[in-house]
């Protein structure tokens, strides 16, 4: 990686002097992720994923006037909005980046977007911010913000569709009492009721208690065909399921992403037969393809690493489609390159995509996660639908 950095830096210098009179020879993309802080174990491979896409494009020599792409890393800290904004400010004003791949956590992403990206007119593509609060439906972001991970609001819709397809019209909902649980439960309730279903109760539970019989008593009294448990499998979520099974309150459940894990099967085995689950996950072919492409250079299965690759790729493809590295020009093209119509582009096919765009063709970027941008420019998300039967989780399909 170090060698690669030096190589790109050297290339950039040479390119800089060679094309001194040219205009868009060198493209700089900021990578702002929490290299320190609570998700510091995830961010190195996320950055590697993004830089892999940039290297691919540089090597192809097809972007704009055979420009080289230089990554510039900065630390978002994940939690400190002030530090993150300062780092992003440096990227934009000192390093003069043409686009930002990041940030990671929802809080700092919002801060950077409002304080730096919108103020300076720089496109930002986040690989991992999932808060519904970042969906800018009224164009508050001037069309500058995109994300390759789905909003939690999207999961509410996915659960609704899944349950409706199974003919379930009445459910009870319990959620872990924090931003994740409440956001998910509320977005699900809104979607489910809009689709004609009934949510009999939407009650919180606290994590880390020994006894959930009172909570389950209330849920049972409200009734419903299935219990949606928007909690954590290592915390109160399992306690709720245990109490519900013991008291016969509910036999089947729906498990959102916080509950889907090996621990769930370990805890309950065949007791949850007939339950459903769903969590965001690229299909198996896509993750194998990405792993093959990475070839062991870094951990390709680490969370949000494929999303990072896609985020960086989208920025560069949009530049090519616009024929410009100016954010205000290429921001219009991000949705076009990400969605149909056009030729489908998988991982490792960036050179092909650049060529098609150069020839004036149209592409539909699929990438490492099956990118499909909806609404104000966020991933539709690929959810793996699960059916629990006989103590194993069977993949029913993807939606």
């Amino acid at each position, binding site marked *: 990686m170090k060698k690669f950095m030096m190589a790109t830096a050297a290339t950039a210098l040479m390119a800089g002097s060679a094309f001194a009179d040219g205009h868009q020879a060198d493209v700089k993309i900021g990578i702002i992720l929490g290299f320190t802080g609570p998700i510091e174990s995830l961010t190195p491979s996320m950055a590697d994923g993004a830089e892999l896409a940039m290297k691919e494009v540089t090597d192809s020599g097809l972007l704009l006037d055979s420009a080289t792409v230089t990554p510039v890393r900065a630390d978002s800290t994940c939690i400190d909005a002030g530090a993150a904004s300062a780092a992003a400010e440096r990227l934009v004003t000192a390093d003069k980046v043409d686009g930002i791949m990041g940030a990671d956590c929802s809080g700092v992403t919002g801060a950077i977007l409002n304080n730096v990206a919108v103020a300076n007119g720089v496109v930002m593509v986040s690989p991992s911010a999932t808060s519904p609060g970042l969906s800018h439906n009224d164009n508050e972001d001037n069309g500058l913000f995109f994300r390759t991970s789905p909003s939690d609001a999207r999961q509410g819709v996915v659960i609704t569709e899944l349950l409706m397809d199974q003919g379930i019209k009445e459910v009870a909902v319990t959620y872990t009492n924090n931003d994740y649980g409440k956001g998910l439960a509320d977005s699900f309730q809104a979607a489910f009721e809009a689709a004609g279903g009934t949510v009999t109760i939407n009650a919180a539970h606290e994590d880390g208690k020994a006894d959930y019989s009172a909570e389950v*008593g209330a849920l049972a*009294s*409200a009734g419903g065909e299935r219990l949606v448990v928007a909690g954590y499998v290592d915390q109160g979520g399992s306690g709720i399921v245990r109490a519900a099974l013991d008291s016969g309150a509910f036999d089947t459940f729906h498990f959102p992403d916080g509950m889907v894990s090996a621990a769930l099967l370990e805890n309950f085995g065949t007791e949850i037969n007939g339950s459903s689950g769903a969590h965001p996950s690229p299909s198996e072919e896509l993750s194998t393809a990405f792993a093959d492409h990475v070839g062991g250079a870094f951990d390709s299965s680490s969370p949000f690493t494929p999303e990072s690759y896609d985020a960086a790729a989208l920025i560069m493809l949009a530049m090519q489609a616009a024929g410009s590295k100016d954010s205000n020009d290429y921001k219009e093209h991000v949705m076009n390159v990400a969605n149909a119509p056009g030729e489908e582009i998988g991982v490792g096919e960036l050179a092909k995509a650049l060529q098609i765009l150069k020839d004036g063709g149209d592409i539909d970027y699929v990438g490492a996660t099956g990118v499909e941008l909806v609404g104000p420019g966020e991933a539709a998300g690929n959810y793996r639908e699960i059916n629990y039967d006989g103590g194993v989780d069977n993949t029913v399909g993807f939606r």
Partner: protein
Amino acid sequence: MDLLNAFVALSNFVLIPAIAYGSQLALGALGVTLIYGILRFSNFAHGDTMAFGTMATILITWGFQAIGISAGPLPTALLALPFGIAICAGLLLLTDRTVYKFYRQQKAKPVIFVIVSLGVMFIMNGLVRFIIGPNDQRFADGERFIISVRTFKEMTGLQEGLAIKTTQGITVVTAVIVVAALFYFLNRTRTGKSMRAYSDNEDLALLSGINPERVVMVTWLIVAALATIAGVLYGLDKSFKPFVYFQLLLPIFAAAIVGGLGSPIGAIAGGFTIAFSEVMITYAWKKVANYALPEAIAPDGLAQLLSTDYKFAVSFVILLIVLLFKPTGLFAGKSV
């Protein structure tokens, strides 16, 4: 039939859990009340004493499981219980020798004892987390249900199911045995009578030749047994987590004070009062009401007085009411 369904639903979600929880609280409150009556201070370390005793029992249970000893359909923890009690008693006697005895000889005021017990609480708390860790531990084994929802429905053909967990059955049976034995001991045996005499009037008891150190020692032994039994039953029925036991201190004290501090009968009544009010006030009565009431007046809403988040608040409201209107508690213990 509908009334029967209503009763079954009520038993399943209110009566049975509340009786089991009430028994666990009552055993805990008995320990607190004994210390208050005889040693004359509020022992804040009681929750962590329960945690320590339970931890010792769990470790021995794991040992038994490893060498293949089991109690058949009953949880192995019951076999390990006597050993757990012995270890817990050892710790309590050691604390008494090294800490409380010093303040007893100083004739320290009760409030100083309370603060000392707070210190002991933190040490025990740390000890438990240090040995077994702060996480959830499950140690229940054997048969899970006396009667499960499915068998109950098949047997009776009712719409509503009723589940009685083995641990709930064991809790109630053990609590009855322990309480009976304790009352026999306090009312019929010589040592028990001398303990009550010491509790009623320390100076008169000393004049009549009762050895105070012996009374204190016996008290700690009984408290160790009560705390360990209460803790193990709670852990079997729910799960063992040191922090949860620390939090249990609050409803246990509420139970002891509501019943009347220093009164064993009061501790039991208090335990059940707290448990039933916690469960009944936070229960959503919709289902039961729909079975029991004619359709015209059956509620559409949940008919829930308070969200379950406020469970702990219920015990404190009761505590406040009792302290305001009857400061000695239901069974006229000592005023606090």
